[in-house]
């Protein structure tokens, strides 16, 4: 199975535009784009993503709160979640991983290697333990 369906949550419209351009237009992923954690919770179950790409600092529900709420939705209990954030000090990254994130992509990210990074992390999560 290959990675194709990504739930993407980001409150900054400019970063959203770039990510959508990279992931949807250039690499052909099927994206469900959400502007907030609340919107993501509302759309996640119906979209049934293979991966969630989640901003951390958002007004309303932040990334960790959104992650916790997603885990309570049917079918999303184990869906891999990757945080994309500018807050990447060592102790912050450790905290994200402890929350159950698959990985962390630091902002600013390299648009040319973003899809490879996502695929690598996702493939790793699909390997049998």
């Amino acid at each position: 199975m290959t990675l194709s369906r990504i739930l993407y949550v980001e409150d900054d419209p400019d970063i959203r535009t770039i990510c959508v351009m990279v992931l949807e237009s250039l690499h052909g992923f099927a994206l469900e784009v959400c502007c907030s954690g609340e919107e993501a919770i509302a759309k996640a179950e119906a979209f049934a993503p293979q991966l969630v790409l989640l901003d951390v600092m958002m007004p309303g529900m932040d990334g960790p709160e959104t992650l916790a709420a997603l885990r309570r939705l049917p079918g999303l209990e184990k869906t891999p979640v990757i945080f994309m954030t500018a807050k990447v000090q060592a102790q912050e990254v450790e905290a994200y991983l402890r929350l159950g994130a698959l990985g962390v992509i630091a902002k600013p990210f390299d648009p040319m290697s973003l899809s490879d990074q996502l695929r690598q992390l996702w493939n790793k999560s699909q390997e049998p333990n």
Partner: protein
Amino acid sequence: MRAALPANESQRLRYLHRLGLLDTPSESDFDDVTLVAARACGVPMAAITLIDEDRQWLKSCVGMERGETSRELAFCAHTILDPQSLTLVEDARLDQRFSDNPQVTGAPGLRFYAGAPLTTEEGFALGALCLVDTQPRQLSLEQQDILRALARQVMQQIRLRETLTDLERTRDKLHLLADSVPVLIGQLDAEGRYVFCNRKYRDWWGLDPQWLLGKTSAEVLPGALVRGLAPYLARALKGEEVEFELEDADGRVIAAHYLPHRQNEQLAGIFVLASDISQRKQMELLKNAFVSSVSHELRTPLTSISGALGLLLHGQTGSLDEPQKKLLDIAHKNSQRLMYLINDLLDMEKLLAGKMRFELQPADVTSLLEKALYENTTYASSYQVRFALITPRHPLFICVDEQRFLQAMANLLSNAVKYSPADSLVRVECQQLGAARLRVSVIDRGPGVPEDFRSNLFQKFSQADNPAARRKGGTGLGLAITRELVEKMGGQVGFSAPQEGGSCFYLEFPLVENVAHETREKRE
């Protein structure tokens, strides 16, 4: 007859008042002298008198009422006119100075008077030790000697008192000073018992000065605090100077300093100095929150800028002509430069705040350097510069945090590359210094560092004043961060100017034995 005034009257009076002896209660030290004087000379009345502007005041007396008489009537007012001699009046009725004195013509009918002046070293006669009788009498030479000797004893008492008063004044001044400074000052003896605490110290811990002295901190401070202080106090009581910071249950923070002091090579006690740094700590927390928030706020727009520029540059939105590509390249490089600056600022902040964690482990320096070169090869290629690595023949181990070591090396390597002419070589040499140290040198063939600038090389933002360096890009923090990183891992940084030109930046670390490595080899 009224006595004349002594020639030094005004200084004499000033001295007398400064003594603070006038109008004080009776004291046995003085009373004993008057008693001995009266008994030894067989006279019913004796007194120690002090003469001020208008009265004779009795500090001590035997056989008469303690109190004062007017200076006009005082026999002693005549005695102080000759500070070095006894005044002897065998029968006052026959002495013209006293024959009309109401104390002679009326009650109590004084006849005999002998007064030894109480004279200071400066020659001020303050009053007299005097013997009085209502009968005329004579004083033998021996009794005169006794009277003089006892007057000297009175002066000795007065001098002791004077010294004590001076000491008390000095002590009060010191206490006033200690109570006025915004610093906690304390003094403990060699067993850790309080000898002194200033007001700030007592107020800070809420201590009662009455029962504080002679107690140990364990007896007067809250238990949690005592446990916090114990290890530092133990070290100080062994004679070690100790500095530490301590937060109490209310979140107040002090920076404290234990200063042992010695007498004859023995520990005599400890001075405790501490200042309130709660506000500074709060400011630091605010600053950290600010730096973290600002870095996030700066990175978010940078994400859009560098992301958009990256996509354009890689032709994802159609091909670009050369001028367009060149301009976008400038914008992209500078957005990355801004990113490096933010990262460097964050690193510097973490290093200075002591918040950067180091996981030190023994590592083979050759494999570390190979990694460092590999990670920077792409960057070197973009400047058409190559690396050459010269490593020792046998494995050498240093104890470092691999990521931080690579970060330090990346700073040195990128500097060397930036300043190297195209098609040149950057040499990375590793050599052992003596038995216990190792040096890693990064040598380039660039323009070198001007001599007057070398002392600033490892300072923060050192290239700010160096326009030539600014043109090369970089944040001016790289070498300062390198130094901090290396020093935190127990190493040193340095610079030397190779004879053939260019620059040589080096790192030095102590060599360590690699326990894991050796064990593995033995098993093999």
